[in-house]
């Protein structure tokens, strides 16, 4: 039975997957069968029969590692010595890590706000125009590109070559600058602007999501409200300010918080484009560096916990707003 525990090769791995699925089906059907047998059983037994296994998996695969991470964050680099809150002190007092927190804050503030604002304005502008479908598709397409793919594309956009004889620019932006008579720029080196240029990539990806959700919300505003506002003499900006935005407020909050969560996890863009050099390091990437390159499990766990704590209020708010949005409906 060694192949079951140590599959070698693709065929055997697929076989193990197949066995696992069958095992799941067998166990699940057995549980449901047993739960279903007796007459008149309390409701909670049936409920447990249905959600018990997934809950057990969640506990084992999500809650347990989270607790282990929390535990490790109070220990030294290889979890052999208890060091109390030293790792947290390091993460919040050393200038190197303070900067990482600052850059992460910049990401979490700028990326969701700008994506949402651009997405909202765009959705309002193309609403009920002749070319609405095409315009929306254009902005939505980047959503389908992976973060790493987008980073590579933008890496080429920002690519730098010196302005001298015999050297061709290969970066789109620098070529534009050269045509306009400006010297080419090292977009990814100059602090603090380089972080801005990385955030642009995130915005490029997330705007499509914001636009789609908000556009749907705008279309759901009841016509009689809009009519009444028109009769009261609201036009253009006022209409947008007093009718559109308040009506879609729950959707706006959901979009903002969802993008904020995606931004907190921004790891791939930074890793692909600068590797965290030139003062662009963010918490998610620093955590990876500490865990897998520096092999400092304690500090890495502490950074992961910090990330976890940062994301909790956003999630709570997000869930609350979602409930509200559903109540309104």
């Amino acid at each position, binding site marked *: *039975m*060694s*192949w*079951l525990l140590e599959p*070698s*090769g693709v*065929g055997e791995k697929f*076989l193990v997957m*197949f*066995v696992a699925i*069958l*095992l799941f*089906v*067998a166990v699940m*059907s*057995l549980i449901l*069968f047993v739960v*279903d*047998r007796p007459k008149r059983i309390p409701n909670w037994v049936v409920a447990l029969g249905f959600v018990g296994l997934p809950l057990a998996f969640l506990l084992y695969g999500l809650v347990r590692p989270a607790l282990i991470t929390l535990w490790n964050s109070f220990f030294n680099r*290889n979890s052999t010595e208890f060091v109390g809150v030293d790792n947290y002190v390091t993460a919040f007092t050393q200038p*190197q890590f303070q900067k990482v927190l600052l850059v992460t804050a910049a990401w979490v503030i700028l990326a969701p706000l700008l994506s949402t604002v651009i997405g909202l304005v765009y959705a309002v502008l193309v609403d009920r125009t002749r070319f609405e479908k095409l315009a929306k598709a254009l902005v939505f397409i980047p959503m389908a590109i992976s973060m790493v793919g987008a980073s590579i594309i933008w890496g080429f956009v920002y690519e*730098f*070559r*010196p302005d*001298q*004889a*015999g*050297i061709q620019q290969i970066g789109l932006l620098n070529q534009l600058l050269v045509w306009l008579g400006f010297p080419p720029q*090292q977009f*990814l*080196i100059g602090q603090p602007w380089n972080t801005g240029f990385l955030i642009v990539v995130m915005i490029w990806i997330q705007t499509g999501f914001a636009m789609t959700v908000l556009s749907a919300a705008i279309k759901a505003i009841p016509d009689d409200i809009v009519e009444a506002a028109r009769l009261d003499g609201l036009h253009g900006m006022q209409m947008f300010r007093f009718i559109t935005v308040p009506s879609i407020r729950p959707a706006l909050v959901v979009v903002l918080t969802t993008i904020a969560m995606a931004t907190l996890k921004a790891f791939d863009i930074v*890793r692909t484009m600068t*590797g*965290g*050099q*030139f003062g662009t390091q963010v918490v998610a990437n620093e955590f990876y*560096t500490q865990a*897998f*390159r*520096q*092999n*400092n499990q304690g500090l890495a766990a502490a950074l992961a916990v910090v990330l976890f704590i940062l994301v909790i209020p956003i999630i709570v708010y997000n869930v609350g707003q979602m409930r509200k949005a559903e109540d309104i409906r």
Partner: protein
Amino acid sequence: MTRTTTTARRRGLAVLAGGASLALLLAACSDPDGDAPSESESSGDAMSSTSIDCSAYDEFGDLDGTTVNIYTSIVEPEQATQEASYDAFEECTGVTIAYEGSREFEAQLLVRIQAGNAPDIAFLPQPGLLNTIVNDYPDAIQPAPDATVANVDEFFSETWKGYGTVDGTFYAAPLGANAKSFVWYSPSMFADAGYEVPETWTEMMELTQTIADEQETLPWCAGVESGDATGWPGTDWIEDVVLRTAGPDVYTQWYTHEIPFNDPQIVEAWDTTGEILKNPEYVNAGLGGVDSIATSPWTDAGFPILDGNCWLHRAANFYQTQWPSGTTVASDGDVFAFYLPTDQTDIKPVLGGGEFVASFADRPEVQAFQTYLSSADWANQKALSTPEGGWVSANTGLDPENLQTEFDQLAWETLADENAVIAFDGSDLMPGEVGAGTFWTGVVDWLTGASTQEVVDRIENSWPM
């Protein structure tokens, strides 16, 4: 009522059927000696492997049909030549070598060891990683078998054996060696301009100034970008200069932290390096200003030499494999290299590096393969199976005649020179926080505007207590 009983029975049958099919599947597959899928033969240059003596592996018993897993950071294009060099051993013993190369090797290896899923053999690119593994996972790593130790004693110097030793136990035999103290140049450009290869550091700086005065293109090109390892080529530069300005003894004190990282002698070495790397009159030929060194990939930072945009590029012997296909590497070809000169008269410091063979299993086939890799047979097989060159070893049993390129022979001579003082790559010997962390990022900050003092102070502060 009847209806419910039938559904209940049906359900019972379904459960039974599910369980039964699972049992059947498990029974069908529990063939204990299922053959592993055979590895397709590696497509190296097929060469007669009759040249090695198979009796060396008799002591390990009958190994036919066994498999040894290797995990390494050596990926294409070097992977094919590595695999071809194992053919002789595979034919002798009937062992299959399963080769797995990964660019994420350093991060993944520790994860695999933690998960109890260590490979049989791993090629460690730094002694520092060996130290980490021995200290953190002493139960996982196996000491080298006696036959391997005998080979190492016979074919390698004490220094090389020392790198594979932790706390008096010898674990990892050297595999390949790197000689990093080389400057790449174009012989034809030198000949056309009437320049000579410099023999001393002073001559090299004079030549640099001459090129800067006479030519339209800048003399030096450099690049330290290397994904998430960005900065390492810069550490090689600094280490080479420390060896030349402060000497090998100070170099040893430096990486063992007997003297602080911001010691004045080390600062002097950084500043000497800066005379080239931070001088906009001298760098970065065809690639931009000084800060472009930080963003130029090390893999093609030397390519401007081919277009006549750059004159000098300091890079290790393995840079030979980076040149685009069709480039002739020869003393009368497109590119060649000279030893990075020194003003020291008594010694010729050579910055070296290498991989070390660590094992995580003590099965006889694994031990036999370790023994093969540490033998003169393997070194010569590897040389023969690397027609493109770019490989050299510190194995004294290696016959330099077998090295396939002129440059590899030069690298071998440089390592074997009687005045050569081989110093192992310092950042590989420092603790990971520095050697694979702040030293790398420090180089990047230094190239993008930070002062030497600022950078060395920061690196010193990050040294683990």
